[in-house]
Structure formats: C-alpha cells, structure tokens
C-alpha cells in the first residue's frame, strides 16, 4: 500500500485545560473520500482545526504528503496542498463572489482549478459573481466556500459540516458536486452529522465519540447498530 496522503498517530488537542482529542489515529490515501461522523462535541471540528494548523500541534505526529507537519502554520499547509471549507462557510462579506473565489488562490501551488472550472461546477455562481459574498442564499454561499477551497488546488480538501443549516433539497445539490470533484482525482475528508449523507459519499468512515475514534469501516460493511453504538455511545442492546 502506498504512503497515506495524511496520517495522524495519537493526535491530542487541548483548549486550555480541557482535552478535546485523546489519541486519534487516522489515515487517508490518495483519491479516497473519508467521512468523519459523530455527534456535537465529539471532536470532529477540533480534529480538522488541528490538521489545518489552526490549533497548535507542536510535537504531534502528523504526516502530510510524507512530511511531518506537526506545528506547521495554517498558511504554510495551504501552500503544501491542504484546503479547508470551514464550518459556517466564513465567506468574506466585503468581497464579491468572484473575489471570494480568487482569494482562495492566494496561496496556491498548481493551476488545475480556475474560475472557469469552478463556474462549470456551480453555474449559478457565474450569474452571481458580482454580488457580495454573503448576499447569496445559504446553499449558494456554501458553493462559494467549496469553490474557494478548490481554488488553491488542494491535494486534500477538508469539508466541515457543509450541509449544516441547509434544506435537504439544497444539500442534495451540493453533494451532487462531490462526485465531480472526486472525478478530478481530489482526496476529500467530509465531516458530517448527517450519517446517511456521509455513508452515501464516503469510501471509508471514521466515527468520533468524546475525542476518540469509536469506529472505522466502509459504508458497505458497517451495520446500523454498530454505527448508532459508536455515534451515541450506546451498546447495541441498549439501542433497541
């Protein structure tokens, strides 16, 4: 098996005295799509914040593209090919849609994704490109956030809760883009609270619970009982 594109061993994270992650072992290979599921406070977002360098990770065992990146800064990781679609989209309100996309290319390394290819993926954004970033509907804003992440030509794209707060029909629209993004050879980590959505797009699933990995497997081999046990912390019997 080739080297994983990203790997963590025993990753821990703290907010002050509070420990949020207790030794996460994680790996993702090129071309894979992994879904991380888990309830609120399970540590999913903390995990993403750690591997993107938004949280300090000095001395931790994180490998990205075969290189140790524990303690690397967020901006240097973007240049190495890591992009994140943050929870809550976090578009820049004083920038237009097009400028929001262009700023994604600020730290870029290659040149696969361009404004044109993003507009092919989300045609509605081309019509709205001169609108303010936060004047669009929630779903369209999410498209901008995903496009902005892609503009840096990531080798690994992290999507944090991209369906949060959106209507089911819109979520469907957004997830229709995922296979197209995968088709370009992108590797993705998708953090989701919606288990069905996660199982539908993922090659492999990690379930987090209280800062630990409680279950891993492929969508086809995992049973509903296993998942609810790992998700809610209930024993299989107790779930019935």
């Amino acid at each position: 098996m080739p080297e994983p594109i990203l790997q963590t061993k025993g990753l821990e994270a703290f907010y002050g005295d509070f420990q949020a992650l207790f030794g996460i072992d994680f790996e993702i290979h090129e071309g894979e799509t992994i879904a991380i599921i888990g309830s609120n406070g399970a540590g999913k977002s903390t995990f993403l914040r750690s591997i993107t360098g938004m949280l300090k990770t000095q001395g931790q065992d994180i490998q990205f593209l075969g290189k140790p990146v524990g303690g690397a800064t967020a901006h240097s990781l973007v240049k190495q090919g890591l992009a994140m679609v943050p929870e809550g989209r976090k578009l820049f309100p004083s920038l237009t849609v097009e400028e929001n996309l262009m700023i994604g290319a600020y730290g870029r390394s290659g040149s696969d994704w361009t404004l044109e290819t993003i507009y092919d993926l989300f045609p509605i954004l081309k019509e709205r490109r001169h609108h303010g970033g936060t004047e669009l509907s929630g779903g369209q804003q999410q498209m901008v956030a995903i496009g902005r992440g892609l503009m840096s030509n990531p080798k690994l794209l992290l999507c944090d809760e991209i369906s949060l707060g959106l209507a089911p029909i819109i979520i469907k629209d957004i997830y229709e883009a995922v296979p197209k993004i995968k088709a370009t050879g992108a590797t993705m980590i998708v953090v989701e609270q919606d288990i069905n959505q996660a199982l539908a797009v993922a090659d492999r699933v990690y379930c987090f619970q209280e800062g630990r990995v409680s279950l891993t497997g492929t969508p086809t081999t995992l049973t509903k009982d296993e998942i609810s046990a790992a998700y809610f912390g209930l024993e299989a019997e107790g779930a019935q």
Partner: protein
Amino acid sequence: MDWINAIVQGILLGGLYALFAAGLSLMFGVMRFVNIAHGDFIVMAAYGALLAVTFTGVHPLLSMIVVVPGLALMGYFGQRILLNRTLGDDILPPLLVTFGFSIIIQNVLLEVFSADSQKLQAGALETASIQIAEGLNIGLMPLLIFLSALGVIGGLQAFFYRTSLGRVLRATSDDQDTVRLMGADNAKIFGYATAIASAVVGIAGVYLAMRTNFDPSVGPARLLFAFEAVIIGGLGNLWGTLAGGIILGVAQTIGAQIDPGLQILAGHIAFLIVLVVKPQGLFPKMKG
C-alpha cells in the same frame, strides 16, 4: 466672498487632514489596531524631511523620495518585530505600547532637535497662488496637498479593489482567522498594511513640515485631527475619510472666520455633532 474663501480654504486644508487620517484608517481597518503614536510618527516623518533637506539641500518635496520608503520600511519591520506581538484578543496591549511609543518619540525628538519650532522652506511654492475670482485665491501649496490626498486615497482604493494583495487585506479586515486558511500569513499581511500606512504617514509628514510650523510636541494634536476625520467619515471607508477631513477643515476655517480663536474648537464641535447624530460616521463601510 470671505465666507466662500473660508470654505474653499477649508476644503483644501481637509486634504491635509485626510492624509493624516488615511494611515490611521487603514491600520484600524485591516488589523483593528489603534495607533496612539500615529501623530508622532507624522512628526517624525517631518523631522526626517528636515534632515534630508538640511543635509542635501534639495527642495522639501524631493525629500519624499527618502522619507516615504524609509517610513514604509520602518513600518514593516516595526510591525513584524514589535507590534505583531501586541495583537491578540485583548485590545489593551497595542494601545499601551503605542502610547509608550508616543512618549518615547516626543522625547527623543526633543533631545535631538530641541523644542525649537521648525518649518521647511518651500520657496516660491509657498506664496504662489491662483486667482479664481476677485478676493478668492487658491494657494498652490494647499492645492498640491489636496490633490496629493486625492491621489493617495484614489491609489489606495485602486490597490484595495484591483490587486491580489489588496483583496487579501480586505479579507483580513473581515475575518483574520479565515484568511489563514486561504494561505495568507497574518504576520506578513499586517506588516504590509503598516508599511503602506507608514508610507502615507511619510507623505503627510513632509506636507506638514512644508505647510506649518512643527515641534516635537505637535503629534497628539495631529492624531486627534486624524481620529476626528476617520470617525466623521465612517470607519473603514477611505473616501469617507477624505470627506471627514474636508468637513473638519471647513468647520475649522469657518470657525476661524467667525473669530480666529474659534478655529480648533469649531472643528471639535463639528466632530461632536456628527458623533451625536450619526455615531457610525457619515459614510459607514460599504460592501465590496
């Protein structure tokens, strides 16, 4: 005609105030950073121009060739080495550090240059004027300063809206955390912002030195005018800052027209009125 004259001179004076204010506005906009020593930096630039003119004998305008890049470099490294360390969730450290800077700069200038009032001689430029109508003359120097303010603010605006770095600076102003996920290094971005702001301070300092008498203690008053212009115009809007400078300038010259002793007070009163009526300023930040 006296009143029209007062208004026209006030508008031109507003250009100088806008130059004082532009750097302050920019640093606050990008970093949420209030530089208490801003006025003292302007005075320092004025002394820089004085040195350049004294040693080389060039026309004061030409001293900008040295003063502006010099200030920009100082701004960049000052931000990277010192001021970045003060930035964080707490807004107090940057205030305290720049307040300290203000005292240090004033005292160093006092030690080196003494308390004597200085002024750069601009030669024929000082007295040249254009007659618009009977009893209404526009001095060439105030006009030059006003046009420079237009140029500086127009240039900054173009930079912010047409360049990649300008876009990142605007994004940083929106959300300092998320720009890191775009591959932007905050420490560097802040350095660039301060460098640009300091270059404007350099221009303002040279004009201050050419237009008025200055001594080491006049910085805080310039800071006050800059603050008032920024607040009147609305935070984060550079054209608003120009408008704020003009309103302040016109209020002062009209006050002076009523009674020479009223000049400064009239400016402060105009500022107070705006603060009471529209606390957000007249032209709050527009969307891109």
